[in-house]
């Protein structure tokens, strides 16, 4: 439902949950346990969607305390509130426009100085702030001791020590929230000031813009953001100021392009004053377990071996637990249901049975049988992220990924693609730069998934006998080669060679929180079933309709007519109309290739099919067909999540077009090369 708000402006529509109940916003940097706290407070009373017009995840929910209901919004995790990416803009626009009754700033006690940086920004906005001093256990483990009362006295706003993973401190946090709402607590802090040498410039800026700052922005705050070079605010003020004032601001900012550092230094000076008395640091030389694990996990070679081991384990789990479960669901649940429905509907017209059994159940079956593998991947992904290992995997893979203009963080989602492209594309959410994320989404379907490998595993022995293994390996290598090539090229063409800087926090390791991971798996699976599921179902029905109209059999259907019409294109690749149709039907699910061939060759036992294929097609055609199958348009589940994750049909169509071009080009080249070499 939130999809309907195709709102391109930065304003954020009023929440659904806000009906007279107090609204609380959770703010915090990444890796401070903000999501854990959000999950703890709301449980399953939460809704996950996207921020309007953005691809950033939006989570909101409600909880009850002391017979009162509260609305809770999880703002995107950001290190600051300066517009580097959509996340910062969303967080600050929400606080300024929606005016939450309280902002709970979650900070990490183990890296207090750094995580208070966001608090130094939050206290300048017009909403009461409460500091949730989280991860006290991790801090103690690192030998860092934080005196929360001292910090509270220094800050002048409430500070609640807590360990969200062990649910300690949440009751006290809720109590403080209630007291603040009742006006029983003072909420005043001395605000950070710009470094002394830039005070005059800040004053001058404030004077120039005075009277021209649009609502709801505070004047002083806008002046600071201008000095910080914030792109959004600069743009806003260029529109709001009369020309000569705009010029004056431009000149001033140009002369003081180091003002950003002065503003930031001012904030850290404020932080240092706050934490000086409150934090007792460990003596130098103490070795924490993060250091011990990192000796291996971030080692240039050891780290790669560890990563390979972990990924091997994930795939082992997928194949020993996921695949059998997937088979069981496919044959027993979906198959059983189809049989039962077929018998039940036998007295009705054939089209009703076909529509329900082949169209709807077929589509729903595709969604359901995907689930076991998705759950395993989401859980593994959640575990790696929650423990802090994900950053290490990105770190050791950074060099290799950079060749494609990608970030180390792109590696894991891409690798997941070997299992299934769907979680791979959903997994790109860990990549924080939008160009890098979209580039990863575009090339992710080039990673051959298990379904495509299954098709190859059937066809390669049929066509090539003893050379099947060699052919299969060559196909995988070819896919990888094309992945690297298209990644490099797309980065140059579409993203103008933009290279996102590699600056990434390496969080301390901590024990995973089952609740956080469980909810992540639940939400991702649910959003896949709800959003992608409906798209898949619609496509399955459409494909079925095309395969029976107008006469009720595949042989004379529109689908086959289309295949015959497209056969000239197929001929470039050495494919006849039957192979072309098989290729087209691989869109609902890649496994369909074999089933379609079975129907078109009028044979059901697979052994016969293999013999007929060998007899019918030349080596060149067979080779070309396998290459095209590997590189063709991703399956409709993948297309559906590409649409869901990019939130744009434009990117989705670009992706489809890209794979059409790549597969046809590669197929033609391989076919003609094979003919030339007289294979």
């Amino acid at each position: 439902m939130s999809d309907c708000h195709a709102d391109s402006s930065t304003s954020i529509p009023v929440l659904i949950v806000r009906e007279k109940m107090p609204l609380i916003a959770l703010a915090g940097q990444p890796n401070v346990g903000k999501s854990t706290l959000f999950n703890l407070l709301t449980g399953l009373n939460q809704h996950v969607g996207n921020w309007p017009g953005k691809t950033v995840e939006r989570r909101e929910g409600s909880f009850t305390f002391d017979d009162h209901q509260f609305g809770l919004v999880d703002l995107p995790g950001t290190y600051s509130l300066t517009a580097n990416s959509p996340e910062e803009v969303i967080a600050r626009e929400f606080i300024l426009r929606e005016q939450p009754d309280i902002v709970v700033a979650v900070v990490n006690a183990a890296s207090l100085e750094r995580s208070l940086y966001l608090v130094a920004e939050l206290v300048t906005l017009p909403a009461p702030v409460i500091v949730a001093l989280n991860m006290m256990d991790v801090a103690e483990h690192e030998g860092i001791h934080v005196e929360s009362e001292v910090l509270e006295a220094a800050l002048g706003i409430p500070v609640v020590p807590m360990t969200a993973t062990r649910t300690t401190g949440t009751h006290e946090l809720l109590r403080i929230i209630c007291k603040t709402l009742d006006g029983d607590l003072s909420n005043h802090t001395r605000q950070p000031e710009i470094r002394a040498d830039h005070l005059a410039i800040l004053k001058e800026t404030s004077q120039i813009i005075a009277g021209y700052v649009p609502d709801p922005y505070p004047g002083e705050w806008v002046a600071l953001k201008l000095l910080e070079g914030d792109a959004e605010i600069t743009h806003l003020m260029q529109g709001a100021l009369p020309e000569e004032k705009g010029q004056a601001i431009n000149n001033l900012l140009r002369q003081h392009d180091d003002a950003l550092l002065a503003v930031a230094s001012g904030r850290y000076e404020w932080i240092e004053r706050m934490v000086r008395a409150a934090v007792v640091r460990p003596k130098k030389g103490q070795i924490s377990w993060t250091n011990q694990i990192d000796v291996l996990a971030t080692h240039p070679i050891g780290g790669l071996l560890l990563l390979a081991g972990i990924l091997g384990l994930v795939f082992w789990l997928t194949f020993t637990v996921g695949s059998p479960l997937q088979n069981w669901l496919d044959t027993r649940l979906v198959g059983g249901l189809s049989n039962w429905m077929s018998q039940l509907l036998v007295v009705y017209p054939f089209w009703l049975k076909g529509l329900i059994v082949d169209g709807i159940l077929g589509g729903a079956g595709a969604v359901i049988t995907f689930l076991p593998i998705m759950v395993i991947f989401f859980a593994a992904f959640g575990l790696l992220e929650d423990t802090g290992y994900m950053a290490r995997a990105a770190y050791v893979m950074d060099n290799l990924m950079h060749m494609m203009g990608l970030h180390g963080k792109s590696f894991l989602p891409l690798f997941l693609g070997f299992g299934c492209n769907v979680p791979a594309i959903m997994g790109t959410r860990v990549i924080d730069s939008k160009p890098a994320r979209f580039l990863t989404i575009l090339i992710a379907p080039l990673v051959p998934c298990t379904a495509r490998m299954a098709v190859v595993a059937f066809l390669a022995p049929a066509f090539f006998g003893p050379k099947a293994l060699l052919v299969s390996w060559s196909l995988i290598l070819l896919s990888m080669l094309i992945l690297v090539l298209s990644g490099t090229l797309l980065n140059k063409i579409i993203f103008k060679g933009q290279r996102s800087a590699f600056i990434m926090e390496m969080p301390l390791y901590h024990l995973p929180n089952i609740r956080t991971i469980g909810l992540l798996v639940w939400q991702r699976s649910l959003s896949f079933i709800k959003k992608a599921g409906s798209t898949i179902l619609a496509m399955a029905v459409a494909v079925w309709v095309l395969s029976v109209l107008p006469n009720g059999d595949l042989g004379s259907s529109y689908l086959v007519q289309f295949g015959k019409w497209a056969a000239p294109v197929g001929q470039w690749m050495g494919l006849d109309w039957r192979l072309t149709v098989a290729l087209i039907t691989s869109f609902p699910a890649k496994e369909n290739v074999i089933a379609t061939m079975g129907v078109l060759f009028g044979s059901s036992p697979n052994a016969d099919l293999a013999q007929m294929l060998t007899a019918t097609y030349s080596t060149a055609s067979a080779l070309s067909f396998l290459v095209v199958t590997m590189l063709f348009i991703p399956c409709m589940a993948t297309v559906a999540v590409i649409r869901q994750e990019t939130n744009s049909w434009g990117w989705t169509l670009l992706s489809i077009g890209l794979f059409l071009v790549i597969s046809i080009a590669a197929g033609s080249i391989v076919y003609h090369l094979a003919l030339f070499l007289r294979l």
Partner: protein
Amino acid sequence: MSVKQISLAELPVDEQATIVHFSNGLAETNRLVSLGFTPGVEIDMTQNYGRGPLIVTVRGARVALGRREANKIIVERRTEK
């Protein structure tokens, strides 16, 4: 105690230095600043194999940097005598 200015990428493991300045373009500077990098701050080299990315500790938090990013940060190395 003598001081010497080098790029952060050249700082060996387990040595400390103070950031003198960095100019990495607005977006990158913003990101560095929000992760704790400011002129005058003390920085610890946690991992540096001489090639590839490196890890530093700044304001009590570990941050990974690409070599290219680290090359643009000028630090003052402290060598105790």
